[in-house]
């Protein structure tokens, strides 16, 4: 990794201020000045900053992400994600170019990454409704299928040295997360029971993104510009990435089944064309239902984090109350299958 041109791992004191940033960027890009340092949305696990770095010749628009202090590191770190981005880029997945990444020193070490700032929109409701994204919407199902096929095709040997979980039994993995919450929800038990009884043959384990959906994709006016948020990338059944974006929460109020944009048939046709791998409607539906259960359990977990005082975020508290939406969707979807 450290030998890649333009890619410099850095050590530093645990101060991520504008001065520190200017100093580091001087080493990497020959930057003379940093300006417009603006804090962007705060994810749960990291801070995101946007800024301009000036060199003699040109101005670079960059994004810096830093691990948030005191958070569980279950979802990986910025430094780890930058290594994944680099591999994804080499394999033709549309992602931002990594400029630098590294760790702060001392106890409570935080990692960071600096990437190019790419153009586009991530807010799903705008992408799904505003007329300026009409052309993008027409291309998106195909673009997403193509990006997923590229992600799933990456040979796993390329990730040597990066800690990635290999989920061979997705139901047991999810069930142990649910059981650890110790907050019984009979509808979730019902869904586990149905999923166990109807589990399709697991496809060969590949690299998967794990959170592929609008909100984590940068969309420009012609379609998909970059795949972001690789925090929970892992190895597993590739069809989970397709099913996840069909979960109702990721349709953002639209009635179109796939990412709020298209149909099962469109997604399957594009994915088969791009990947050469067959996907059945039944398998896709199983993974959509699995995804709904997974999001329901994440909502339950977030509500629990708020109650246990791990966060005082109103947004996370409110997500706790979205458990019932997923329970309802699970009962509807499984109910339809029972009545067939």
């Amino acid at each position, binding site marked *: 990794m450290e030998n890649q041109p333009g890619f410099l791992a850095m050590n530093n004191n645990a101060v991520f201020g504008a001065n520190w940033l200017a100093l580091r960027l001087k080493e990497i890009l020959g930057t003379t000045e940093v300006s417009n340092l603006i804090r962007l949305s705060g994810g749960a696990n990291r801070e995101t900053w946007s800024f301009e770095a000036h060199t003699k010749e040109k101005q670079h628009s960059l994004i810096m992400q830093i691990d948030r202090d005191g958070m569980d590191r279950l979802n990986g770190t910025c430094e780890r994600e930058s290594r994944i981005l680099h591999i994804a880029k080499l394999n033709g997945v549309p992602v931002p170019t990594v400029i630098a990444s590294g760790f702060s020193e001392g106890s409570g070490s935080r990692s960071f990454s600096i990437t190019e700032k790419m153009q586009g929109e991530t807010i799903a409701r705008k992408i799904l409704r505003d007329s300026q994204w009409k052309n993008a919407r027409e291309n998106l199902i195909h673009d997403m299928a193509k990006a997923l096929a590229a992600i799933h095709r990456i040979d796993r040997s390329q990730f040597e040295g990066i800690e990635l979980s290999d989920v061979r039994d997705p139901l047991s993995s999810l069930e142990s997360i649910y059981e650890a919450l110790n907050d*019984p929800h009979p509808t979730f038990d019902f869904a586990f029971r149905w999923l166990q009884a109807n589990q399709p043959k697991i496809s060969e384990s590949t690299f998967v993104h794990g959170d592929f959906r609008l909100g984590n994709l940068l969309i420009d006016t012609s379609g998909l510009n970059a795949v972001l948020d690789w925090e929970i990338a892992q190895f597993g059944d590739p069809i989970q990435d397709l099913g996840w974006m069909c979960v109702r929460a990721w349709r953002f109020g639209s009635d179109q089944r796939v990412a709020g944009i298209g149909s099962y048939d469109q997604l399957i046709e594009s994915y088969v064309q791009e990947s050469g791998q067959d996907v059945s409607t039944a398998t896709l539906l199983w993974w959509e239902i699995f995804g709904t259960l997974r999001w329901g359990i994440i909502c339950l977990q977030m509500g629990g984090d708020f109650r246990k005082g791990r966060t005082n975020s109103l947004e996370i*508290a409110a997500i706790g*109350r979205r*458990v*019932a939406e997923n*329970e*309802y969707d699970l009962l509807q979807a499984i109910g339809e299958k029972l009545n067939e």
Partner: protein
Amino acid sequence: MSNVDMSDWGLPSRTNYPYDAPSATELIQAVEECITEEIMPSSDGSTKWKLRIAANALKIAIREIEGGNSHRDTLQTILTDIEAIDMHDLSEKIKAGDYDDRFEMLQEKLLSIVTMKLAVANPEHFQ
């Protein structure tokens, strides 16, 4: 001059004695309306987004206070119906396969419970 106080006439009877009006629900309602009608229109970006979440959370709180008692009774009736003591017990019985031969019935009962929860959490989610 009559000494009967007529200022409350026409209003719903008060239920929160010994406290004064407005009641908890009425106060939450007032805050929600203040956020939605007065503060939100002049805000934008992440502030507006947070205010929308806040107003929505208050609406959930009102629906929960109003629905609470009757929903609790209905839940108990459904649980008794399917021979479960409480939600924890129902969970354990589903896991043990106790309802595998009555899976459609179980789905209907769970849907009744979840429908009550969703009516409070997000009634807009019903298709």
